């Protein structure tokens, strides 16, 4: 599932409501069949939701802690990281090394503070942690924003792999190519409202662009196909 829209039309708020960071004013949130409306962020995490936040430096990592520690910021609550009531530094390191290898995070050492990494590697650190701890739902807000080509590719591939593994992926993005290549279904948001849902198979960039500027689905369809017709393409 993809969410399209020009930034600032309620997409970030949507992800933060789902992850429990903002209160739900009306409506309800169901995760894996359980009602999770207005539960704490921790309860929502426990119900299986992973979150790649929109502001990766401010919300996704603790810059002044090591890459290894950042990688266990979900896993520290349970075994094997916590062992006999204490955190086990050796297990943290082992886990971190595995993650660094499998997600190809470029860091001098696992003990390097995250803030010294490049944006792409910070994002890979978040991705590694969130995907490893994912229990069925992945909420990703602008995951490839500001990244170079290689990192963007890696992020998208992980999204697709997650989807193929059967997880629900909610991808919020401004990048329409990304949405079309990753998402099966796309909802367009404008001024906090949904403008309609599309199948990415028959949604074109122009169509999405129209809806993102506030044109409703039916009208956009008419205009889109209508104009196609007129130019005779």
């Amino acid at each position: 599932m993809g969410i399209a829209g020009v930034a600032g039309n309620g997409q970030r708020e949507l992800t933060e409501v789902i992850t429990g960071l903002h209160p739900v004013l009306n409506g309800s949130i169901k995760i894996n069949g359980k009602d999770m409306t207005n539960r704490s962020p921790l309860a929502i995490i426990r119900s299986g939701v992973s979150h790649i936040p929109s502001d990766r430096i401010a919300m996704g990592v603790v810059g002044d802690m090591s890459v290894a520690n950042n990688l266990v910021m979900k896993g520290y609550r349970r075994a094997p990281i916590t062992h006999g009531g204490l955190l086990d530094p050796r297990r943290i390191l082992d886990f971190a090394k595995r993650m660094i290898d499998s997600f190809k995070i470029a860091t001098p050492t696992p003990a390097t503070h995250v803030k010294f990494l490049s944006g792409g590697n910070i994002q890979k650190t978040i991705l590694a942690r969130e995907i490893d701890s994912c229990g069925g739902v992945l909420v990703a807000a602008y995951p490839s924003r500001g990244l170079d080509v290689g990192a963007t590719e890696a992020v998208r591939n992980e999204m697709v792999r997650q989807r193929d593994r059967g997880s629900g992926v909610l991808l919020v993005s401004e990048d329409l190519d990304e949405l079309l290549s990753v998402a099966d279904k796309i909802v367009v948001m404008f001024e906090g409202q949904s403008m309609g849902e599309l199948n990415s198979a028959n949604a074109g960039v122009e169509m999405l662009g129209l809806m993102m500027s506030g044109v409703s689905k039916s009208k956009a369809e008419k205009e889109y196909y209508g104009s196609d017709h007129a130019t005779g393409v």
Partner: protein
Amino acid sequence: MQLVFEKRKAVSRRAIVLVPILSFIVSLILTGFLLMAFKANPLRTYMAMFIGAFGSWSNFTETLVKATPLMFTGLGVTIAFKLRFWNIGAEGQLVFGGVAAAWVALFWSPFLPAWSLLPMVMLVGMMAGAMWAGIPALLKTRLNVDETLVTLMMNYIAILFAEGLYYGAWRDPEGYGFPGTKLFPEAAWLPRFSGRAHVGLFIAIGIGLLLWVAMNRTKWGFELNMIGKNQKAARCLGVNVKRNILVALLISGALSGLAGVSEVTAISHRLQQGLTMGYGYTAIIVAWLSQLNPIAGLFVAILMAGLLVGGDQVQMMMGLPAAMGLVLQGMILFPMLAGSLFTEYRLKRIDPRNSRVAESNEELSV
């Protein structure tokens, strides 16, 4: 040649150890100039201070006497600072702990078996300290009221409250007008082991070690660290920030409260004037100089206590004000703060021949 700051690739471990030590040396040098301005020989003064604080076992026990409350308050402040919660109210938490200890020691003894009096004194004293830190923590987490000011104002309130008691309702009627309560019953005395040095020292060391484990090896410490370094991210990752702040501050206040308990039950054996020696403020220096490391904090507390005892000695021997020790303490944080930059940045020379070719040519031609 030009110097600029360049970000390091990783935090320098060497700088973390060296900066506090160098800071202490710089502080000695700077204070040395002050001493010279008042026609005192810095080397002789420092020697006298050192001998006064560490020169003999009996002097050293006095240093340990002052180090004990500094350990408690320093550890308490460390926990709060770890969260970037600026608890500068250790002084008030200490006093309030002392007041509560006096209350139990003076008025509960008829109702309690003797063996249980001291544990009860300590427990209630800790609870009182916790309460005194809990109020600003609640105001902060519920209403977002600035904790720096509230904790500080509560220092004055606690000090005046204690004053009101030992000058007023609790004043010893047979004390010849001396501002203090009656002596506590002996069951409420914390045992001493040498001179005035008392078992509070071992409790403090034990808590310091325990705290190191808690801060570095438990989920609690891990969350504390996350909150202190990035509160927003901690919340996103499911950490209950408000509850953590409240719990940490209750512990922080309880430790400072314990400092007050040990002062009244082991040193003065009554609540009296002079309970506030500034330990709560020096605790800030202990916490920051130890870089919020509880074990380092134990040693720094002994060092700071040495400066206080040394200052007293210098006053007796050389007629210099005892506030010397405070000046030295106050001076330490300046180089420390300036030096912290070097753990993350380093000075880099920029060769003007590369960056400013034109200017260097001019210089050559002159």
